[in-house]
């Protein structure tokens, strides 16, 4: 009995450290089971078994696991990431992490951007020199973190050039950095020295803010009840029409913001109404059918329609506002697209609750601007597009 128990303990202990995939399903099959996870726990039972088995896979399965990210939802990608890290961690401790396989995955830009970044971070654990080798080429990568690393290097280089008095080189370096910069802190760190050097930068175009709008309001939002009321602009966009609004007849007006960050201040553009709603609409000429993110910042409740389809709605008031606060993935059609935004103000009286504003931009998943037809990327990059009232 004693021998049996000790043997059982030994087997169980051994089993906990030895990969079991040799006797289980192939990684590809396990990945498919994991990819089937859905909302509210759907598909968990087979996925739990699959991730447990996949986590025991040998290190040679790592590229295959990474390959599964491309066809995974963000939720399923995290399941795969859990398995990947367990396998990679074990391989690292056993000195079996294959740097060349990881690097091959990183440099293949047809691979999923997040998976490439994950592979890169594990590559660094076995080859710290990879950063110097790979990051300079990541300036306009599909992954925002790669871009950030590449931009940071250029900012450091440009700053040193400035310190050394090499102004022309510094300007060139900062302009190059701006090509990849998608994070506002880095953009600010680039724009300031560029402007100090006399360069012009158009932040509206850099970020891809939509700046020209048609506005109509106020409609009634007393007691926040207007959020769910479909006022006429939700049914028709007739720019010569007039409608009964909140205490007055309302009509469409044109509005172009000159704010560098594309902010449309409705309290100034119209009036600081309370318990009120404004609709804003804009056209976006897309050079092709494409998937983009519409990113919105607003402290007000809002609804967004793209080509008549409700993309997202949110009834939160005055809990803060920031650039890229909301990311709404949408599909644009080639040519004309119509954006319609409903911006709701409540009746809070506190000083900090008077904002009635929004900023909206169109960009890639990595955060780089998607510009409408007629504005080229090169114009943005070289700063040839001027802000009419820059510096305000």
């Amino acid at each position: 009995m004693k021998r049996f128990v000790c043997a059982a303990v030994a087997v169980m202990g051994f089993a906990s450290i030895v990969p079991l995939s040799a006797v289980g399903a192939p990684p590809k099959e396990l990945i498919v089971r994991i990819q089937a996870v859905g909302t509210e726990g759907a598909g968990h039972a087979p996925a739990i078994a699959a991730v447990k088995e996949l986590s025991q896979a040998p290190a040679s399965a790592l590229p295959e696991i990474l390959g599964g990210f491309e066809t995974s939802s963000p939720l399923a990608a995290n399941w795969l990431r859990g398995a990947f890290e367990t396998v990679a961690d074990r391989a690292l401790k056993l000195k079996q992490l294959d740097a060349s396989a990881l690097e091959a995955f990183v440099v293949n830009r047809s691979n999923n951007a997040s998976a490439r970044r994950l592979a890169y971070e594990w590559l660094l654990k076995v080859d710290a020199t990879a950063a110097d080798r790979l990051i300079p080429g990541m300036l306009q990568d599909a992954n925002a973190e790669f871009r950030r690393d590449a931009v940071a290097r250029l900012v450091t280089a440009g700053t040193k050039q400035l310190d050394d008095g090499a102004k022309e080189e510094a300007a060139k370096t900062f302009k190059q950095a701006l090509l990849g910069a998608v994070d506002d802190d880095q953009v600010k760190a680039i724009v300031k020295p560029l402007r100090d050097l006399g360069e012009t930068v158009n932040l509206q175009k850099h970020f891809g803010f939509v700046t020209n709008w048609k506005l109509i309001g106020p409609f009634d939002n007393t007691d926040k009840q207007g959020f769910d009321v479909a006022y006429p602009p939700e049914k028709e966009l007739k720019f010569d029409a007039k409608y009964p609004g909140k205490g007055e007849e309302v009509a469409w007006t044109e509005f172009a913001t000159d704010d560098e960050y594309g902010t449309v201040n409705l309290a100034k553009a119209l009036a600081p109404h309370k318990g009120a709603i404004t609709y804003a609409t804009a056209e976006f000429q897309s050079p092709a059918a494409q998937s983009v993110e519409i990113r919105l910042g607003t402290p007000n409740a809002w609804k967004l329609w793209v080509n008549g389809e409700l993309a997202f709605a949110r009834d939160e008031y005055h809990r803060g506002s920031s650039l890229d606060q909301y990311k709404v993935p949408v599909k644009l059609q080639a040519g004309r697209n119509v954006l319609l935004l409903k911006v709701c103000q409540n009746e809070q009286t506190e000083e900090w609750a008077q904002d009635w504003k929004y900023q909206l931009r169109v960009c890639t998943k990595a955060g780089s601007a998607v510009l409408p037809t007629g504005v080229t990327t090169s114009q943005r990059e070289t700063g040839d597009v001027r802000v009419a009232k820059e510096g305000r």
Partner: protein
Amino acid sequence: MRGFSYSLCLLAALSPAVVIAADWRQFRGNDSTAVADDTPIPLEWSADKNVAWKVPLTGRGLSCPIIVGDRIFVTCSSGYRQDRLHVVCFSAKDGSTVWERQFWATGRTGSHPKTCNASSTPASDGKRIFALYSSNDLVCLDLDGNLEWYRGLMVDFPNASNSLGMSSSPIVVGDTLVTQIENDSQSLAVGIDVATGESRWTSERPKRANWTSPAVLRGAKPAEDLALLQSSAGLAAVNPRTGAVVFNYDNGASTIPSSTVNGRTIYVPSRGITALQIAEGSANPEILWRGERLNPGTGTPIAYKDMLYFVNNAGVLFCADPKNGETKWQLRLEGPFSSSLVAAADHLIAFNEKGVGQVVKLGEKGEIVSKNDLGETFLCTPAVANGAIYIRSDEHLWKLALPQ
């Protein structure tokens, strides 16, 4: 004896999560009481005194450390967008990293700059770690870092977020993880099967921002334990298995400091503090007393050794009689405070935001016995186990303990 040893050996092999020491498994400890045992704790510390170890963290966070056996678990968030989620396991003995896992946020990560994505304290059932973030990503790992399951609660409920950030910490009641996801837009409470990650129940909650954490009301036996869900509407006691409301207190309550429990009495931050007495098996909470001048600040009150304590927004520590709410004494501490009090070995520990841990000896009057500055911002509540205090900032995790 030999057979007993073999049994232990087998048990250990079968169940690596066997708890052999005092744990601190969730926000404010196993029972959400913030009370540790009487093992002596360090009463003073500094950078070079009673610091058993100090280790760097890989990201920001105001979530509290939790302790399971000889391991410390901490959540962090990093990246420009705070969208990288970390769960890190440290050895309690020497602070070495046992493992770390990272994930990507599937929900919105924005928050007030003071807070961040790693704001909710993780919880454990002794076998698994449940790490919840402000983005409402919910990760379940075993104690060795193997992923068990992953939920994106903002994927499930796209408007379940607060632009200022969320911070309610989930708790384990029986075999259910109870979490409150309450805000102005889409407010819910969810009971999740700890083993499968599947929802046992989902209930609608008041649509108003709420940063309080659930607490547990112990029954005569574990199957009768209830989860207490506080909100602006009041306090609901629910069956953790079904979500069914067993009793409801609807006189309103705070949305920042949470309720604390002592036996069958619940001290609710409601109109000051309202003490609810719950008779065994009763569905009718009786208001024992209400102290409208007892106004806890951000931190949750604590019931400890026949007294009730809390710190108000001015940084004044109050000691009140838990039987009638009568104030016994007050003591001005050095604030401001985001963390909650913890109690151990006849002392209270209060960490202010500036990094000063204040130790208060309890008795007829409170006495500040030390002010200990670690020089970093502390927004989290410490964990206490086996005579050690664990506290984290955005940069470091400390173990404070008397020399062995």
